[in-house]
């Protein structure tokens, strides 16, 4: 009897320790995050008003607003997504669906993607500069920047969509095939909708990485802080703007304000992306 009580007591102590550890870790992580956001808001919120969002850049960013920067950022992101989403979806489908017959190919492509996903962005910047700006003659332009970003985003996007598709139970495939459904209609009507969470996650990871990127854009879309007149024009992305502001004296207040805008933007785009994918693509399936 006494033996079992002492064992019970020991178990209780161990439980308490584990619990303290878990809560401690979770608390630390949350605290760091709160400090970061708090610092950003504390220094940045004051600088944000309508003028800041709608005016042009003055004195290389120390004064004026960030409107042209926002426009460039959106254009770069748009180019990046317009290229990444179709190519990414098709590649992921190929990897998860059609490669069953050719596992070697899919393993090879998968391994290459994993390596690419780990390559530092500065390397993508150099590649983008050499390939898009110089070899293809696009120069420092929003197009070059967007295309370079999509090279960077694609590996992550493809991998997470592929995982999402692979997670769809193979029961559905057999069920569909037994009903004489073609591969394509299975894909469009069952597998893609059921894999929607994976697509959403991939999209958000991709957008997050694209918006946060500075190094890859430095050599491709350039620094010009005026309003871009076309996709072939150079344009400065928001994160690059922040980086630049930290390098000039007196640039800090606006760097912080831009930082707040960037974080807010990320949040809004993430919500939008997940809502869109859940309702448009996933709207056809019901998860229980």
């Amino acid at each position: 009897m006494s033996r079992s009580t002492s064992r019970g007591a020991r178990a209780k102590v161990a439980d308490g320790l584990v619990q303290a550890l878990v809560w401690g870790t979770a608390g630390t992580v949350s605290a760091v995050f709160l400090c970061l956001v708090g610092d950003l808001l504390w220094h940045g919120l004051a600088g944000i008003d309508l003028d800041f969002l709608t005016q042009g850049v003055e004195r290389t960013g120390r004064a004026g607003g960030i409107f042209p920067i926002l426009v460039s950022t959106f254009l770069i992101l748009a180019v990046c997504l317009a290229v990444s989403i179709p190519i990414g979806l098709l590649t992921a489908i190929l990897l998860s669906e059609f490669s069953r017959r050719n596992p070697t190919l899919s393993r090879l492509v998968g391994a290459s993607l994993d390596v690419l996903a780990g390559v530092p962005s500065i390397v993508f910047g150099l590649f983008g500069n050499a390939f898009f700006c110089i070899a293809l003659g696009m120069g420092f332009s929003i197009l070059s920047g967007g295309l370079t970003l999509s090279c960077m985003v694609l590996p992550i996007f493809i991998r997470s969509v592929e995982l999402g598709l692979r997670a769809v139970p193979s029961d559905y495939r057999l069920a569909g095939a037994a009903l004489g459904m073609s591969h394509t209609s299975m894909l469009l009507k069952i597998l893609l909708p059921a894999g929607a969470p994976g697509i959403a996650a991939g999209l958000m990871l991709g957008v997050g990485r694209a918006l946060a990127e500075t190094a890859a854009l430095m050599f491709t879309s350039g620094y010009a802080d005026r309003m871009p007149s076309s996709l072939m024009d150079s344009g400065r992305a928001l994160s690059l703007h922040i980086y630049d502001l930290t390098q000039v004296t007196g640039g800090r207040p606006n760097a912080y304000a831009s930082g707040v805008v960037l974080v807010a933007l990320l949040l809004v785009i993430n919500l939008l992306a997940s809502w869109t994918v859940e309702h448009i693509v996933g709207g056809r399936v019901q998860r229980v």
Partner: protein
Amino acid sequence: MSDCCFEACQSQRLPDPEDETFLAVRNLSVHYGAKVALESVDIDIQRGRVTALIGPSGCGKTSFLFTLNRLSDLIPGCGVGGRVRFEGTEIYSDGVDIGLLRANIGMVFQKPNLFPVSIRKNLYLPLREHGCPVNQLDRRSEEVLREVGLWSEVSDRLDASAHSLSGGQQQRLCIARALTLRPKLLLMDEPCSSLDPMATDVIERLILKMRGEYSIVIVTHNLAQAQRIADDVAVFWCHDESGCVIESGHAEAVFRAPKQPDTVAYLAGQRG
């Protein structure tokens, strides 16, 4: 080895199929990579009857069903030899329309495998795939739901998720989904093995009701069930790790006077 198994199997050889035979299987074999799962199966399946496939696990009953609608095409490494002739068409010849074949030969699986969409959409999907006009969808859906006795249970919640149904209801909806295409032959792979006795009873009665209108091949581990519902029986057995059919014929005859010693033992519940 194949010779030895052939002898061990003592499976009966049938003559070449006649044209009016509903479904004729000749010298069928299935292998997964190097592993032979099923060997030299000869069997005729009759129109409008319920044929039960019985025998221990791992003797290739599921593999056999998968060859009949060419679902085996989807299993990596799975190879099929021999002939399957369905209503006069060799289904393993070139130029067979597999979509049409699978519309004619429906299948119900061991576990209900409804799509993660509404009850209604589960029935619409195969109908739309096979070109059912939009204004016929509702009528046809109601028809099959009535056939499987689900209409009164789900008519007021057709847009609810199919996965919200009970296990027995899900399995009946799977049957209804297969029936949307008016198949001539329905393959059922242990359709009751995941169900409770009540739900099993409902499905058994449904099978008895469908007999005649549909031809049914059903795999079951439940010998009492086979006796209750089957017109014909085929006994699968394993020899040297590969499966074969050791005995087949009228259910009554096989159950009353089995010819093979293995069948006798199996029916007596001593082996397998």
